Protein backbone atom coordinates (compact mmCIF):
# COMPACT_ATOMS: atom_id res chain seq x y z
CA UNK A 1 0.00 0.00 0.00
CA UNK A 2 3.04 2.24 0.04
CA UNK A 3 2.29 3.62 -3.42
CA UNK A 4 -1.15 4.73 -2.33
CA UNK A 5 -0.69 8.43 -2.75
CA UNK A 6 -4.27 9.50 -3.25
CA UNK A 7 -6.40 8.16 -0.44
CA UNK A 8 -10.11 8.87 -0.82
CA UNK A 9 -11.39 11.12 1.92
CA UNK A 10 -13.58 8.42 3.39
CA UNK A 11 -10.72 5.94 3.82
CA UNK A 12 -8.98 5.49 7.15
CA UNK A 13 -6.18 7.94 7.64
CA UNK A 14 -3.23 6.51 5.80
CA UNK A 15 -0.36 8.89 5.73
CA UNK A 16 0.76 9.22 2.13
CA UNK A 17 4.50 8.82 1.67
CA UNK A 18 6.05 12.20 1.20
CA UNK A 19 7.97 12.55 -2.03
CA UNK A 20 10.92 14.83 -1.53
CA UNK A 21 11.32 18.44 -2.49
CA UNK A 22 9.59 20.51 -5.13
CA UNK A 23 7.47 17.64 -6.44
CA UNK A 24 5.92 17.27 -2.99
CA UNK A 25 5.13 20.92 -2.80
CA UNK A 26 3.51 20.79 -6.22
CA UNK A 27 1.45 17.80 -5.14
CA UNK A 28 0.26 19.58 -2.03
CA UNK A 29 -0.91 22.49 -4.13
CA UNK A 30 -2.93 20.38 -6.57
CA UNK A 31 -6.21 20.42 -4.58
CA UNK A 32 -6.02 24.18 -4.23
CA UNK A 33 -5.58 24.67 -7.98
CA UNK A 34 -8.56 22.38 -8.56
CA UNK A 35 -10.69 24.30 -6.08
CA UNK A 36 -9.67 27.77 -7.15
CA UNK A 37 -12.02 28.57 -10.07
CA UNK A 38 -15.14 26.98 -8.60
CA UNK A 39 -14.68 28.36 -5.12
CA UNK A 40 -13.82 31.79 -6.48
CA UNK A 41 -17.04 31.71 -8.48
CA UNK A 42 -19.08 30.91 -5.37
CA UNK A 43 -17.26 33.48 -3.27
CA UNK A 44 -17.79 36.27 -5.78
CA UNK A 45 -21.30 35.44 -6.96
CA UNK A 46 -22.80 33.77 -3.90
CA UNK A 47 -21.00 34.79 -0.70
CA UNK A 48 -20.12 38.38 -1.61
CA UNK A 49 -23.70 39.18 -2.69
CA UNK A 50 -24.90 37.99 0.73
CA UNK A 51 -22.55 40.45 2.41
CA UNK A 52 -23.57 43.12 -0.05
CA UNK A 53 -27.19 42.46 0.71
CA UNK A 54 -26.55 42.79 4.41
CA UNK A 55 -24.98 46.18 3.76
CA UNK A 56 -27.81 47.25 1.45
CA UNK A 57 -30.33 46.45 4.14
CA UNK A 58 -28.88 49.14 6.43
CA UNK A 59 -28.59 51.80 3.74
CA UNK A 60 -30.87 54.77 3.21
CA UNK A 61 -31.37 56.94 0.18
CA UNK A 62 -33.22 56.80 -3.09
CA UNK A 63 -32.57 55.70 -6.64
CA UNK A 64 -31.90 59.29 -7.71
CA UNK A 65 -29.59 60.38 -4.90
CA UNK A 66 -27.90 57.03 -4.42
CA UNK A 67 -27.71 54.90 -1.29
CA UNK A 68 -25.43 55.35 1.72
CA UNK A 69 -24.74 52.98 4.56
CA UNK A 70 -26.30 54.74 7.53
CA UNK A 71 -26.72 51.69 9.76
CA UNK A 72 -30.43 52.26 9.54
CA UNK A 73 -31.53 49.14 11.42
CA UNK A 74 -35.06 50.50 11.69
CA UNK A 75 -35.63 49.09 8.19
CA UNK A 76 -35.61 45.63 9.74
CA UNK A 77 -38.02 46.54 12.48
CA UNK A 78 -40.41 48.37 10.15
CA UNK A 79 -40.28 45.61 7.56
CA UNK A 80 -40.90 42.93 10.15
CA UNK A 81 -43.78 44.77 11.77
CA UNK A 82 -45.40 45.40 8.43
CA UNK A 83 -44.93 41.92 6.97
CA UNK A 84 -44.86 39.56 9.95
CA UNK A 85 -48.11 37.96 8.76
CA UNK A 86 -46.43 37.11 5.47
CA UNK A 87 -43.53 35.37 7.23
CA UNK A 88 -45.93 33.39 9.36
CA UNK A 89 -48.02 32.43 6.34
CA UNK A 90 -44.95 31.36 4.36
CA UNK A 91 -43.68 29.15 7.15
CA UNK A 92 -47.12 27.61 7.75
CA UNK A 93 -47.81 26.94 4.06
CA UNK A 94 -44.31 25.54 3.55
CA UNK A 95 -44.66 23.39 6.69
CA UNK A 96 -48.02 21.96 5.64
CA UNK A 97 -46.75 21.35 2.10
CA UNK A 98 -43.71 19.53 3.51
CA UNK A 99 -45.86 17.25 5.69
CA UNK A 100 -48.15 16.55 2.75
CA UNK A 101 -45.16 15.80 0.51
CA UNK A 102 -43.91 13.31 3.07
CA UNK A 103 -47.34 11.68 3.39
CA UNK A 104 -47.80 11.46 -0.37
CA UNK A 105 -44.19 10.80 -1.30
CA UNK A 106 -43.35 8.07 1.19
CA UNK A 107 -45.81 5.46 -0.16
CA UNK A 108 -44.61 6.17 -3.69
CA UNK A 109 -40.92 5.93 -2.78
CA UNK A 110 -41.68 2.73 -0.83
CA UNK A 111 -43.59 1.26 -3.76
CA UNK A 112 -40.76 2.02 -6.17
CA UNK A 113 -38.11 0.63 -3.83
CA UNK A 114 -39.81 -2.58 -2.71
CA UNK A 115 -42.92 -3.38 -4.74
CA UNK A 116 -42.14 -2.31 -8.27
CA UNK A 117 -39.96 -5.21 -9.40
CA UNK A 118 -39.01 -4.76 -13.02
CA UNK A 119 -41.18 -1.62 -13.25
CA UNK A 120 -38.80 0.21 -10.96
CA UNK A 121 -36.97 2.16 -13.65
CA UNK A 122 -40.19 3.02 -15.48
CA UNK A 123 -41.67 4.44 -12.27
CA UNK A 124 -38.52 6.42 -11.54
CA UNK A 125 -38.68 7.95 -15.00
CA UNK A 126 -42.34 8.79 -14.36
CA UNK A 127 -41.33 10.62 -11.19
CA UNK A 128 -38.58 12.63 -12.89
CA UNK A 129 -40.01 13.17 -16.37
CA UNK A 130 -42.81 15.62 -15.48
CA UNK A 131 -40.00 17.84 -14.25
CA UNK A 132 -38.93 18.56 -17.77
CA UNK A 133 -42.04 20.46 -18.68
CA UNK A 134 -41.42 23.93 -17.32
CA UNK A 135 -42.83 24.08 -13.79
CA UNK A 136 -44.64 27.32 -14.58
CA UNK A 137 -46.64 25.58 -17.31
CA UNK A 138 -47.43 22.70 -14.97
CA UNK A 139 -48.50 25.06 -12.22
CA UNK A 140 -50.77 26.86 -14.68
CA UNK A 141 -52.31 23.47 -15.53
CA UNK A 142 -53.63 23.44 -11.96
CA UNK A 143 -55.71 26.46 -12.89
CA UNK A 144 -57.51 24.21 -15.35
CA UNK A 145 -57.79 21.30 -12.94
CA UNK A 146 -59.13 23.41 -10.08
CA UNK A 147 -61.25 25.71 -12.27
CA UNK A 148 -64.54 26.84 -10.74
CA UNK A 149 -66.66 24.89 -13.22
CA UNK A 150 -64.20 21.98 -13.50
CA UNK A 151 -64.75 18.37 -12.45
CA UNK A 152 -62.74 18.56 -9.25
CA UNK A 153 -64.61 21.50 -7.79
CA UNK A 154 -68.00 20.11 -8.92
CA UNK A 155 -67.35 16.74 -7.30
CA UNK A 156 -65.98 18.28 -4.10
CA UNK A 157 -69.03 20.51 -3.99
CA UNK A 158 -71.47 17.62 -4.55
CA UNK A 159 -69.81 15.64 -1.76
CA UNK A 160 -70.10 18.70 0.50
CA UNK A 161 -66.35 18.60 1.06
CA UNK A 162 -66.11 22.25 0.09
CA UNK A 163 -68.44 23.09 2.98
CA UNK A 164 -66.08 21.34 5.38
CA UNK A 165 -62.99 23.03 3.97
CA UNK A 166 -64.78 26.37 3.94
CA UNK A 167 -65.60 26.02 7.62
CA UNK A 168 -61.91 25.28 8.22
CA UNK A 169 -61.12 28.50 6.41
CA UNK A 170 -59.02 26.97 3.65
CA UNK A 171 -61.52 27.51 0.85
CA UNK A 172 -64.20 30.11 0.26
CA UNK A 173 -67.23 30.81 -1.94
CA UNK A 174 -67.38 27.26 -3.33
CA UNK A 175 -64.07 27.82 -5.07
CA UNK A 176 -60.69 26.19 -4.73
CA UNK A 177 -58.67 28.57 -6.89
CA UNK A 178 -57.57 31.73 -5.09
CA UNK A 179 -57.73 30.02 -1.69
CA UNK A 180 -55.07 28.70 0.69
CA UNK A 181 -55.98 25.15 -0.36
CA UNK A 182 -54.96 25.85 -3.97
CA UNK A 183 -51.63 27.42 -2.95
CA UNK A 184 -50.70 24.57 -0.59
CA UNK A 185 -51.79 22.06 -3.21
CA UNK A 186 -49.54 23.76 -5.76
CA UNK A 187 -46.58 23.92 -3.37
CA UNK A 188 -47.00 20.24 -2.52
CA UNK A 189 -47.16 19.34 -6.19
CA UNK A 190 -44.15 21.43 -7.16
CA UNK A 191 -41.77 20.09 -4.54
CA UNK A 192 -42.90 16.45 -4.38
CA UNK A 193 -40.01 15.10 -6.49
CA UNK A 194 -37.53 16.73 -4.08
CA UNK A 195 -39.08 14.59 -1.35
CA UNK A 196 -39.41 11.35 -3.32
CA UNK A 197 -35.88 11.11 -4.69
CA UNK A 198 -33.98 11.28 -1.36
CA UNK A 199 -36.58 9.00 0.24
CA UNK A 200 -36.16 6.51 -2.56
CA UNK A 201 -32.38 6.55 -2.41
CA UNK A 202 -32.39 5.83 1.33
CA UNK A 203 -35.09 3.14 1.04
CA UNK A 204 -33.42 1.46 -1.91
CA UNK A 205 -30.34 0.72 0.17
CA UNK A 206 -32.33 -1.35 2.69
CA UNK A 207 -31.69 -5.06 2.39
CA UNK A 208 -35.08 -6.77 1.87
CA UNK A 209 -33.82 -9.61 4.06
CA UNK A 210 -34.19 -7.23 7.02
CA UNK A 211 -37.93 -7.28 6.38
CA UNK A 212 -37.92 -11.07 6.25
CA UNK A 213 -35.93 -11.23 9.45
CA UNK A 214 -38.41 -8.96 11.19
CA UNK A 215 -41.24 -11.15 9.90
CA UNK A 216 -39.48 -14.28 11.13
CA UNK A 217 -39.36 -12.68 14.55
CA UNK A 218 -43.14 -12.31 14.42
CA UNK A 219 -43.20 -8.59 13.76
CA UNK A 220 -46.40 -7.52 12.05
CA UNK A 221 -45.93 -5.53 8.82
CA UNK A 222 -46.64 -2.25 10.54
CA UNK A 223 -44.23 -3.03 13.38
CA UNK A 224 -41.58 -3.91 10.81
CA UNK A 225 -42.14 -0.55 9.20
CA UNK A 226 -42.05 1.34 12.48
CA UNK A 227 -39.05 -0.44 13.97
CA UNK A 228 -36.94 -1.27 10.91
CA UNK A 229 -37.80 0.50 7.67
CA UNK A 230 -38.63 3.97 8.90
CA UNK A 231 -35.59 4.42 11.19
CA UNK A 232 -33.25 3.34 8.41
CA UNK A 233 -34.89 5.75 5.97
CA UNK A 234 -34.57 8.67 8.39
CA UNK A 235 -31.65 10.36 6.57
CA UNK A 236 -33.82 10.38 3.45
CA UNK A 237 -36.72 11.84 5.42
CA UNK A 238 -34.53 14.63 6.80
CA UNK A 239 -32.97 15.42 3.40
CA UNK A 240 -36.36 15.32 1.69
CA UNK A 241 -38.10 17.56 4.20
CA UNK A 242 -35.28 20.11 3.97
CA UNK A 243 -35.26 20.05 0.17
CA UNK A 244 -39.01 20.66 0.24
CA UNK A 245 -39.35 23.13 3.08
CA UNK A 246 -36.53 25.51 2.14
CA UNK A 247 -37.58 26.27 -1.44
CA UNK A 248 -41.27 26.22 -0.52
CA UNK A 249 -40.86 28.89 2.15
CA UNK A 250 -39.28 31.31 -0.35
CA UNK A 251 -41.65 30.51 -3.20
CA UNK A 252 -43.89 33.15 -4.73
CA UNK A 253 -44.97 31.39 -7.93
CA UNK A 254 -47.77 29.30 -6.45
CA UNK A 255 -49.20 32.13 -4.38
CA UNK A 256 -49.13 34.39 -7.43
CA UNK A 257 -50.60 31.95 -9.95
CA UNK A 258 -53.01 29.95 -7.80
CA UNK A 259 -53.77 32.29 -4.90
CA UNK A 260 -55.34 35.67 -4.37
CA UNK A 261 -53.71 38.69 -2.68
CA UNK A 262 -54.72 37.29 0.71
CA UNK A 263 -52.53 34.17 0.18
CA UNK A 264 -49.38 36.13 -0.67
CA UNK A 265 -46.21 34.80 0.89
CA UNK A 266 -43.03 36.61 1.91
CA UNK A 267 -41.52 35.80 -1.49
CA UNK A 268 -44.21 37.86 -3.17
CA UNK A 269 -43.36 40.83 -0.96
CA UNK A 270 -39.62 40.58 -1.62
CA UNK A 271 -40.21 40.19 -5.34
CA UNK A 272 -42.45 43.23 -5.58
CA UNK A 273 -40.18 45.36 -3.36
CA UNK A 274 -37.21 44.47 -5.53
CA UNK A 275 -38.68 44.42 -9.04
CA UNK A 276 -41.69 46.76 -8.87
CA UNK A 277 -41.36 49.18 -5.96
CA UNK A 278 -37.56 49.30 -6.28
CA UNK A 279 -37.19 49.62 -2.50
CA UNK A 280 -33.90 47.75 -2.28
CA UNK A 281 -33.11 48.23 1.43
CA UNK A 282 -36.46 46.79 2.48
CA UNK A 283 -36.16 43.93 -0.03
CA UNK A 284 -32.68 43.16 1.30
CA UNK A 285 -33.82 43.28 4.93
CA UNK A 286 -36.81 41.04 4.21
CA UNK A 287 -34.73 38.46 2.37
CA UNK A 288 -32.07 38.57 5.08
CA UNK A 289 -34.68 37.84 7.74
CA UNK A 290 -36.09 35.00 5.65
CA UNK A 291 -32.62 33.51 5.35
CA UNK A 292 -32.00 33.85 9.09
CA UNK A 293 -35.35 32.27 9.95
CA UNK A 294 -34.66 29.32 7.66
CA UNK A 295 -31.13 28.81 8.95
CA UNK A 296 -32.42 28.75 12.55
CA UNK A 297 -35.27 26.36 11.77
CA UNK A 298 -33.03 24.07 9.73
CA UNK A 299 -30.25 23.86 12.29
CA UNK A 300 -32.68 23.15 15.14
CA UNK A 301 -34.37 20.54 12.97
CA UNK A 302 -31.12 18.83 12.01
CA UNK A 303 -30.03 18.73 15.62
CA UNK A 304 -33.37 17.23 16.69
CA UNK A 305 -33.39 14.72 13.85
CA UNK A 306 -29.82 13.84 14.74
CA UNK A 307 -28.48 13.17 11.27
CA UNK A 308 -25.19 14.56 10.17
CA UNK A 309 -24.65 12.57 7.00
CA UNK A 310 -26.52 15.02 4.84
CA UNK A 311 -23.66 16.51 2.94
Amino acid sequence: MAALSTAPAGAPAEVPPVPPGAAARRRRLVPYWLLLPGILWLLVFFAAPMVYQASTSVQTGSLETGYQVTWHFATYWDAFREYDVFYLRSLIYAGIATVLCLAIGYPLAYTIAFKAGRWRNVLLVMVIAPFFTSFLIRTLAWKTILADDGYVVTVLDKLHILNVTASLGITADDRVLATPLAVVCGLTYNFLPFMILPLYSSLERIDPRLHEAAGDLYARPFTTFRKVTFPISLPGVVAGTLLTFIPASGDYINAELLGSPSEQMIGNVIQSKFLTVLDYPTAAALSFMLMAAILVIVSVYIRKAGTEELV
Partner: protein
Amino acid sequence: MPVLNWVRRHLVVFAGVAALAYMTIPNVIVLIFSFNQPKGRFNYSWNHFSLDAWKNPCGVGDMCDSVSLSLQIAVLATLGATVLGTMVAFALGRYRFRGRGPVTGLIWLPMAMPEIVMGASLGTLFLNMRIQFGFLTILIAHIMFCLSFVVTAVKARVMSMDPRLEQAAQDLYATPWSTFWRITFPIAAPGIAAGALLSFAISIDDFIITQFNAGPATVTFPMFVWGAAQKGLPVQVNVIGTLMFVAAVLCVVVGQLLSRRRKAHS
Protein backbone atom coordinates in the same frame (compact mmCIF):
# COMPACT_ATOMS: atom_id res chain seq x y z
CA MET B 1 -62.30 -12.22 2.77
CA PRO B 2 -59.46 -12.80 0.33
CA VAL B 3 -60.26 -9.66 -1.68
CA LEU B 4 -60.10 -7.47 1.40
CA ASN B 5 -56.84 -9.07 2.38
CA TRP B 6 -55.40 -8.46 -1.04
CA VAL B 7 -56.44 -4.82 -0.86
CA ARG B 8 -54.93 -4.51 2.59
CA ARG B 9 -51.64 -5.99 1.51
CA HIS B 10 -51.39 -3.63 -1.43
CA LEU B 11 -52.57 -0.50 0.34
CA VAL B 12 -49.16 1.13 0.01
CA VAL B 13 -49.12 0.43 -3.73
CA PHE B 14 -52.51 2.10 -4.15
CA ALA B 15 -51.22 5.13 -2.27
CA GLY B 16 -48.12 5.13 -4.48
CA VAL B 17 -50.15 4.98 -7.67
CA ALA B 18 -52.37 7.80 -6.43
CA ALA B 19 -49.27 9.89 -5.73
CA LEU B 20 -47.98 9.16 -9.21
CA ALA B 21 -51.30 10.29 -10.67
CA TYR B 22 -51.08 13.53 -8.69
CA MET B 23 -47.67 14.12 -10.22
CA THR B 24 -48.60 13.21 -13.77
CA ILE B 25 -52.07 14.67 -14.28
CA PRO B 26 -50.84 18.26 -14.90
CA ASN B 27 -48.64 16.98 -17.72
CA VAL B 28 -51.63 15.21 -19.25
CA ILE B 29 -53.61 18.45 -19.00
CA VAL B 30 -50.77 20.34 -20.70
CA LEU B 31 -50.80 17.77 -23.52
CA ILE B 32 -54.60 17.81 -23.96
CA PHE B 33 -54.81 21.58 -23.91
CA SER B 34 -52.16 21.89 -26.60
CA PHE B 35 -54.95 20.72 -28.93
CA ASN B 36 -57.40 23.30 -27.66
CA GLN B 37 -58.69 26.32 -29.43
CA PRO B 38 -59.47 28.60 -26.50
CA LYS B 39 -62.31 31.08 -26.60
CA GLY B 40 -60.48 33.99 -25.00
CA ARG B 41 -56.84 34.85 -24.48
CA PHE B 42 -56.36 32.25 -21.75
CA ASN B 43 -56.06 28.54 -22.36
CA TYR B 44 -57.68 27.34 -19.12
CA SER B 45 -60.98 25.84 -20.26
CA TRP B 46 -61.72 23.50 -23.13
CA ASN B 47 -63.40 24.91 -26.22
CA HIS B 48 -62.81 22.68 -29.21
CA PHE B 49 -60.16 20.52 -30.84
CA SER B 50 -57.65 22.13 -33.14
CA LEU B 51 -54.20 21.40 -34.51
CA ASP B 52 -53.37 25.07 -35.11
CA ALA B 53 -50.80 25.39 -32.35
CA TRP B 54 -48.95 22.25 -33.44
CA LYS B 55 -48.90 23.39 -37.08
CA ASN B 56 -47.46 26.75 -36.13
CA PRO B 57 -45.53 26.40 -32.86
CA CYS B 58 -43.58 29.63 -33.33
CA GLY B 59 -46.63 31.65 -34.32
CA VAL B 60 -46.76 33.83 -31.22
CA GLY B 61 -44.56 36.82 -30.56
CA ASP B 62 -41.01 36.01 -29.54
CA MET B 63 -41.76 32.75 -27.80
CA CYS B 64 -39.33 30.72 -29.90
CA ASP B 65 -36.61 33.34 -29.36
CA SER B 66 -37.09 32.85 -25.64
CA VAL B 67 -36.83 29.07 -26.05
CA SER B 68 -33.60 29.47 -27.96
CA LEU B 69 -32.24 31.89 -25.33
CA SER B 70 -33.08 29.37 -22.59
CA LEU B 71 -31.33 26.60 -24.53
CA GLN B 72 -28.20 28.71 -25.07
CA ILE B 73 -27.99 29.65 -21.42
CA ALA B 74 -28.65 26.10 -20.29
CA VAL B 75 -25.91 24.68 -22.54
CA LEU B 76 -23.32 27.27 -21.50
CA ALA B 77 -24.27 27.09 -17.81
CA THR B 78 -24.06 23.30 -17.92
CA LEU B 79 -20.62 23.45 -19.51
CA GLY B 80 -19.32 26.00 -17.01
CA ALA B 81 -20.81 24.37 -13.94
CA THR B 82 -19.70 20.89 -15.00
CA VAL B 83 -16.08 21.89 -15.56
CA LEU B 84 -15.79 23.96 -12.37
CA GLY B 85 -17.85 21.51 -10.30
CA THR B 86 -15.91 18.45 -11.43
CA MET B 87 -12.63 20.09 -10.47
CA VAL B 88 -13.98 20.93 -7.01
CA ALA B 89 -15.39 17.42 -6.64
CA PHE B 90 -12.01 15.86 -7.45
CA ALA B 91 -10.29 18.09 -4.92
CA LEU B 92 -12.82 17.15 -2.24
CA GLY B 93 -13.00 13.49 -3.13
CA ARG B 94 -9.32 12.74 -3.65
CA TYR B 95 -7.22 15.05 -1.53
CA ARG B 96 -6.78 15.99 2.05
CA PHE B 97 -6.13 19.65 2.52
CA ARG B 98 -6.60 22.46 4.96
CA GLY B 99 -9.88 24.36 4.74
CA ARG B 100 -11.91 21.35 3.74
CA GLY B 101 -14.70 22.21 6.17
CA PRO B 102 -15.34 25.76 4.94
CA VAL B 103 -15.17 24.59 1.32
CA THR B 104 -17.76 21.87 1.97
CA GLY B 105 -19.94 24.44 3.71
CA LEU B 106 -19.66 26.86 0.81
CA ILE B 107 -20.73 24.11 -1.61
CA TRP B 108 -23.65 23.08 0.58
CA LEU B 109 -25.00 26.54 1.35
CA PRO B 110 -26.43 27.44 -2.09
CA MET B 111 -28.51 24.26 -1.99
CA ALA B 112 -29.87 25.21 1.44
CA MET B 113 -30.86 28.72 0.44
CA PRO B 114 -34.22 29.71 -1.02
CA GLU B 115 -33.76 30.84 -4.59
CA ILE B 116 -35.27 34.23 -3.89
CA VAL B 117 -32.51 35.02 -1.38
CA MET B 118 -29.76 34.14 -3.86
CA GLY B 119 -31.50 35.86 -6.74
CA ALA B 120 -32.20 39.08 -4.86
CA SER B 121 -28.72 39.33 -3.37
CA LEU B 122 -26.89 38.68 -6.64
CA GLY B 123 -29.21 41.17 -8.32
CA THR B 124 -28.34 43.73 -5.64
CA LEU B 125 -24.65 43.19 -6.30
CA PHE B 126 -24.99 43.67 -10.06
CA LEU B 127 -27.15 46.71 -9.48
CA ASN B 128 -24.63 48.32 -7.16
CA MET B 129 -21.73 47.52 -9.46
CA ARG B 130 -23.75 49.07 -12.30
CA ILE B 131 -23.38 45.93 -14.37
CA GLN B 132 -25.82 45.75 -17.25
CA PHE B 133 -28.42 43.03 -16.68
CA GLY B 134 -28.58 40.63 -19.59
CA PHE B 135 -27.28 37.37 -21.01
CA LEU B 136 -24.05 37.46 -19.03
CA THR B 137 -25.66 38.14 -15.64
CA ILE B 138 -28.14 35.28 -16.18
CA LEU B 139 -25.32 32.95 -17.19
CA ILE B 140 -23.24 33.89 -14.14
CA ALA B 141 -26.20 33.22 -11.85
CA HIS B 142 -26.99 29.87 -13.46
CA ILE B 143 -23.42 28.61 -13.22
CA MET B 144 -23.43 29.70 -9.56
CA PHE B 145 -26.45 27.64 -8.51
CA CYS B 146 -25.73 24.63 -10.77
CA LEU B 147 -22.20 24.24 -9.45
CA SER B 148 -23.12 22.71 -6.10
CA PHE B 149 -25.31 20.09 -7.72
CA VAL B 150 -22.47 19.01 -10.02
CA VAL B 151 -20.06 18.81 -7.09
CA THR B 152 -22.47 16.60 -5.12
CA ALA B 153 -23.09 14.26 -8.05
CA VAL B 154 -19.44 13.89 -9.07
CA LYS B 155 -18.03 13.68 -5.53
CA ALA B 156 -20.16 10.65 -4.71
CA ARG B 157 -18.75 8.83 -7.73
CA VAL B 158 -15.14 9.88 -7.13
CA MET B 159 -15.22 8.79 -3.50
CA SER B 160 -16.55 5.33 -4.30
CA MET B 161 -13.68 4.77 -6.73
CA ASP B 162 -11.09 2.12 -5.95
CA PRO B 163 -7.71 3.91 -5.65
CA ARG B 164 -5.91 0.67 -6.46
CA LEU B 165 -6.93 0.98 -10.10
CA GLU B 166 -4.86 4.12 -10.54
CA GLN B 167 -2.10 2.60 -8.53
CA ALA B 168 -2.08 -0.39 -10.88
CA ALA B 169 -1.89 1.91 -13.89
CA GLN B 170 1.08 3.68 -12.36
CA ASP B 171 2.76 0.39 -11.58
CA LEU B 172 2.45 -0.33 -15.30
CA TYR B 173 4.38 2.88 -16.03
CA ALA B 174 1.41 5.00 -17.12
CA THR B 175 2.10 8.71 -16.84
CA PRO B 176 -0.18 10.66 -14.46
CA TRP B 177 -1.78 12.25 -17.51
CA SER B 178 -2.65 8.97 -19.23
CA THR B 179 -3.70 7.46 -15.91
CA PHE B 180 -6.20 10.27 -15.58
CA TRP B 181 -7.63 10.02 -19.07
CA ARG B 182 -7.68 6.22 -19.34
CA ILE B 183 -8.63 5.24 -15.78
CA THR B 184 -9.88 8.07 -13.60
CA PHE B 185 -12.00 10.00 -16.08
CA PRO B 186 -13.89 7.00 -17.54
CA ILE B 187 -14.77 5.85 -14.03
CA ALA B 188 -15.95 9.30 -12.97
CA ALA B 189 -17.82 9.88 -16.24
CA PRO B 190 -21.28 8.65 -15.11
CA GLY B 191 -21.14 11.03 -12.14
CA ILE B 192 -20.08 13.89 -14.40
CA ALA B 193 -22.87 13.05 -16.85
CA ALA B 194 -25.43 12.98 -14.03
CA GLY B 195 -24.21 16.36 -12.76
CA ALA B 196 -24.35 17.85 -16.25
CA LEU B 197 -27.87 16.55 -16.87
CA LEU B 198 -29.05 17.90 -13.56
CA SER B 199 -27.50 21.30 -14.33
CA PHE B 200 -29.19 21.43 -17.71
CA ALA B 201 -32.56 20.55 -16.21
CA ILE B 202 -32.28 23.11 -13.40
CA SER B 203 -30.95 25.85 -15.62
CA ILE B 204 -33.50 25.56 -18.40
CA ASP B 205 -36.38 25.61 -15.93
CA ASP B 206 -35.12 28.28 -13.57
CA PHE B 207 -37.40 31.23 -13.08
CA ILE B 208 -36.89 32.89 -9.71
CA ILE B 209 -33.15 33.63 -9.84
CA THR B 210 -33.41 34.49 -13.52
CA GLN B 211 -36.16 37.02 -12.92
CA PHE B 212 -33.90 38.93 -10.53
CA ASN B 213 -30.91 38.91 -12.87
CA ALA B 214 -32.35 39.34 -16.36
CA GLY B 215 -32.45 42.47 -18.45
CA PRO B 216 -35.49 43.74 -20.31
CA ALA B 217 -34.23 42.27 -23.59
CA THR B 218 -33.29 38.84 -22.26
CA VAL B 219 -36.52 36.93 -21.77
CA THR B 220 -36.00 33.25 -21.10
CA PHE B 221 -38.78 30.77 -21.77
CA PRO B 222 -39.97 30.55 -18.14
CA MET B 223 -40.02 34.35 -18.07
CA PHE B 224 -42.05 34.37 -21.27
CA VAL B 225 -44.57 31.99 -19.68
CA TRP B 226 -44.73 34.17 -16.56
CA GLY B 227 -45.41 37.27 -18.64
CA ALA B 228 -47.94 35.41 -20.76
CA ALA B 229 -49.74 34.16 -17.66
CA GLN B 230 -50.57 37.76 -16.79
CA LYS B 231 -51.80 38.95 -20.16
CA GLY B 232 -52.92 35.95 -22.16
CA LEU B 233 -51.60 32.43 -22.53
CA PRO B 234 -51.05 31.17 -26.10
CA VAL B 235 -51.67 27.48 -26.80
CA GLN B 236 -48.17 27.23 -28.23
CA VAL B 237 -46.80 27.31 -24.68
CA ASN B 238 -48.41 23.91 -24.16
CA VAL B 239 -46.86 22.63 -27.38
CA ILE B 240 -43.38 23.60 -26.18
CA GLY B 241 -44.08 22.10 -22.74
CA THR B 242 -45.17 18.83 -24.31
CA LEU B 243 -42.17 18.75 -26.65
CA MET B 244 -39.79 19.25 -23.71
CA PHE B 245 -41.45 16.38 -21.89
CA VAL B 246 -41.23 14.07 -24.93
CA ALA B 247 -37.59 15.01 -25.55
CA ALA B 248 -36.69 14.25 -21.92
CA VAL B 249 -38.44 10.87 -21.94
CA LEU B 250 -36.76 9.98 -25.25
CA CYS B 251 -33.35 10.86 -23.79
CA VAL B 252 -33.95 8.63 -20.78
CA VAL B 253 -35.25 5.72 -22.88
CA VAL B 254 -32.35 5.91 -25.34
CA GLY B 255 -29.88 6.13 -22.45
CA GLN B 256 -31.43 3.07 -20.80
CA LEU B 257 -31.31 1.08 -24.04
CA LEU B 258 -27.68 2.03 -24.67
CA SER B 259 -26.57 1.05 -21.19
CA ARG B 260 -28.50 -2.20 -21.41
CA ARG B 261 -26.78 -3.01 -24.70
CA ARG B 262 -23.40 -2.20 -23.25
CA LYS B 263 -24.10 -4.49 -20.31
CA ALA B 264 -25.16 -7.26 -22.68
CA HIS B 265 -21.88 -6.84 -24.57
CA SER B 266 -19.58 -7.09 -21.61
